[in-house]
């Protein structure tokens, strides 16, 4: 049915056969590692820069402003200028800090977001590793970044940082539950944890449409909980600009600060990509049941465009949250999780299990 979607595995297969003709299998694997790594590094940097720009533009339009418009047309290379500035800035050593952990923390944070990118299916056949436990892997890796944040807060010998880090710890650990449960609901629908499998299972409609109201509820819960997990407003307590100046990265400067900054935006990208993949069909075009003609037309739009479009829609919604709501207090944040989101998502899972048992979903 999805025959005329371009499959990127043909391209990667061609590259593989071409490389195999040039060198021995060991070197082929090595070269492919390096190539994939380079592509990811490039994509990571470009995406990060673009997301910072997008955030600034989105918030500007919401606030009746123009946003960056000086560097380049519509300020499009503003973030590159910012990056150069950050690269040139002095790395300030903090007295009485733990230098090893202090320097290690930004790398932990950035590596975690980097690792999670590997398992996301960007287009048909375009996925670095297709784990059979893909959802589980992404969740595990992305929640590791709390270690980096805690280290950053503890090692920088600043009270603001420490408070921010402890808040972040409490927050990420508790919201992990809701994220897991809301993803679990779709796993129950799809019957697989493999991300490519989940995408394939949405060939006749996205889960948010197929799964009735429970899927919508779990999508909303996922959005809220993942916003909290990536420390973005209204859950940006770890940074809490007006309370803790900059929270856990108060003491960081220059490129180390840029790492935190970049990781924050990439985490936003990752959770949006997961949301798009699991709930909105990932790279799968909009298919409705067995309307063959409609589905054929939709297939002409390349799968990568579908993926990026959906991901950026979710990113926009997350930004919309941030620029509208006041920040929660730490106890209210935990109340929201333990008294509202968790019971609802547990109830939701039972409902979904029931629906699946009765075969009521499409």
């Amino acid at each position, binding site marked *: 049915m999805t025959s005329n979607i371009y499959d990127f595995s043909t391209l990667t297969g061609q590259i593989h056969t071409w490389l195999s003709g040039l060198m021995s299998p060991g070197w082929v694997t090595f070269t492919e590692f390096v190539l994939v790594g380079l592509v990811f590094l490039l994509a990571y940097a470009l995406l990060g820069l673009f997301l910072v720009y997008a955030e600034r533009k989105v918030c500007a339009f919401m606030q*009746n402003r123009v946003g960056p418009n000086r560097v380049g047309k519509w300020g499009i290379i503003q973030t590159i200028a910012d990056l150069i500035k950050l690269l040139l800035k002095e790395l300030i050593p903090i007295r009485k800090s733990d230098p090893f952990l202090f320097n290690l923390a930004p790398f932990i944070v950035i590596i975690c977001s980097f690792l999670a990118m590997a398992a996301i299916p960007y287009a048909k056949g375009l996925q670095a590793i297709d784990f059979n436990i893909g959802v589980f892997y992404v969740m595990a890796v992305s929640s590791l970044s709390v270690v980096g944040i805690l280290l950053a807060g503890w090692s920088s010998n600043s009270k603001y940082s420490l408070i921010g880090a402890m808040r972040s710890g409490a927050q990420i650990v508790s919201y992990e539950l809701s994220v897991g449960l809301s993803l679990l609901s779709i796993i129950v629908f799809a019957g697989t944890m493999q991300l490519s499998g989940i995408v394939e299972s949405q060939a006749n409609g996205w889960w948010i449409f197929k799964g009735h109201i429970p899927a919508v509820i779990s999508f909303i819960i996922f959005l809220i909980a993942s916003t909290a997990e990536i420390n973005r407003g209204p859950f940006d307590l770890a940074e809490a600009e007006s309370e803790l100046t900059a929270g856990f990265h108060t003491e960081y400067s220059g490129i180390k600060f840029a790492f935190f900054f970049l990781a924050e935006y990439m985490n936003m990208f990752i959770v949006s990509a997961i949301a798009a993949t699991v709930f909105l069909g990932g790279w799968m075009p909009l298919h409705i049941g067995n309307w063959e003609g409609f589905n054929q037309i939709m297939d002409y739009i390349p799968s990568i465009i579908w993926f990026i479009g959906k991901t950026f829609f979710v990113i926009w919604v997350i930004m*919309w949250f941030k620029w*509208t709501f006041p920040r929660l207090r730490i106890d209210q944040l935990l109340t929201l999780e333990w008294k509202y989101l968790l019971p609802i998502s547990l109830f939701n899972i039972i409902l979904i299990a029931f629906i699946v048992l009765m075969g009521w979903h499409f």
Partner: protein
Amino acid sequence: MNSIAKYLSELFKGVSTLWAGMRITGKYFFSPGAIVTQQYPENRKTLKMTDRFKGEVIMPHDENNQHACTGCGICEMNCPNGSIEIITDRVPNAEGKMERVIDKHIYHLSMCTFCGLCVKTCPSDALAFGQKFEHAVFDRNKLTKVLNQPGSKLRKEAK
């Protein structure tokens, strides 16, 4: 059962208030006409300050390079910050009497708070506010200005 109903109604009420807020920001996101930012250096040509704008203190000169300042020193006396200094000179006039004229009307823009007392109290309306507001310079000394133009004279009222 009652508590569950209360729980759910609270939940929905909360969500609806959140949606009300999001509607506002969403509305502005999709209405680029509401942008209020002024593109400052670009709109310099069309940017016109109001005629009462207190940009700096100036001494208007007419086309004959004449001003109205008699050098009485009232503005200097009234200035709360000492940002006006007047150096007067005595020169003989046509009838041979010594007459007071200003040599230099020194104005320290860096000290001025734009209270308007000098302009208000000037008995001969020699001072006024200029609309220029781009005062940034690299050297502080450039903010000390001599208001009377070189070679200017006191305007003689036609009697």
